[in-house]
């Protein structure tokens, strides 16, 4: 048998291997290019009081979590109870970024479902979201003491992700 005739078979088997690996990937998930880079700076008013300004600079020196949410976002409701529980452990400050929302609706939702956030910044027109590469709510960032983004979670946080990825990371970052 001529070895050349095996080429189609070999190419096909290679293809199958890649396809098999591909089945375990999610083609919609967009990894963030911001990981390992400094958190983009911004200055916007807070949800509760538009005159109080929030900026990520003010969080330097501690490890903190930025959670992008909105009152119109269904998946955020899924995540909310988990965030409430997590905030009670006081592991780290959770700052909310209320994305493209109506102030009144957002405040109502927090008073009804509970407020896990130390505070929420109000990104009404979404320009801060763009700087952070937000494309679907909810999204969560873990930012270290130097203000560098270390982790981004797309979609609601699940107990598994919290347990296996986020909590160990926070512990690690707190030690440095």
């Amino acid at each position: 048998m001529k070895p050349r005739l095996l080429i189609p078979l070999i190419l096909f088997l290679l293809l199958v291997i890649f396809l098999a690996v591909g089945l375990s990937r999610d083609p919609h998930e967009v990894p963030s290019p911001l990981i390992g880079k400094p958190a983009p700076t911004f200055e916007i008013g807070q949800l509760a009081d538009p005159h109080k300004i929030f900026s990520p600079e003010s969080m330097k020196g501690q490890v903190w979590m930025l959670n992008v949410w909105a009152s119109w976002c269904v998946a955020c409701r899924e995540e909310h109870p988990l965030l409430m529980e997590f905030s009670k452990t006081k592991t780290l400050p959770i700052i909310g970024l209320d994305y493209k929302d109506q102030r009144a609706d957002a405040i109502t939702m927090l008073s009804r479902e509970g407020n896990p956030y130390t505070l929420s910044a109000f990104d009404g027109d979404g320009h801060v979201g763009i700087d952070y590469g937000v494309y679907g709510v909810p999204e969560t960032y873990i930012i270290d003491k130097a203000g560098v983004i270390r982790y981004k979670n797309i979609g609601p946080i699940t107990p598994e992700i919290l347990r296996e990825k986020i909590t160990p990371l926070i512990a690690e970052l707190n030690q440095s």
Partner: protein
Amino acid sequence: MKSLISILLLMFACHGLMANEAVPLAEDPVVEQRLIGISEEMRCLVCQNESLAGSRSDLANDLRAQIRTMIKAGKSDAEIRQYMVDRYGDFVLYRPPVKPTTWLLWLGPFTILLIGILGLFAYLRKRNTSIDSKTLSDDENRRLDALLNNVEAEFKKDPRP
């Protein structure tokens, strides 16, 4: 004469009144052209597979507005692309950048073509020479003819396959 002129003027004025030319949706068509050119080559991140130019989603509208602002601010196409890549990664570009991870992609097709054409001619050349060496000698030709005649005679007797 004066009244004739004023009648003509009135007619022209009325014509202008009756046909209202629609206003372009975009403020500045030149900026808009550039926007379309840039955003056509970018992916709408919330859609399954639509370009940033065509998508009607909220995020796409926001990003197009942002690009419009940047165009008006005088940024170049490359700068705008870099802005988007910085925030969303290479995934947002429909035209994959040329870097070591995409060399196979960009060079692949022409490499395949080259291999195909060279392979074709190598095959043809080898084929012609190998077939040459297989032509029958005169003696073999005679034997072949005899055999074929036999077969034909048999076939005439019983044509079933």
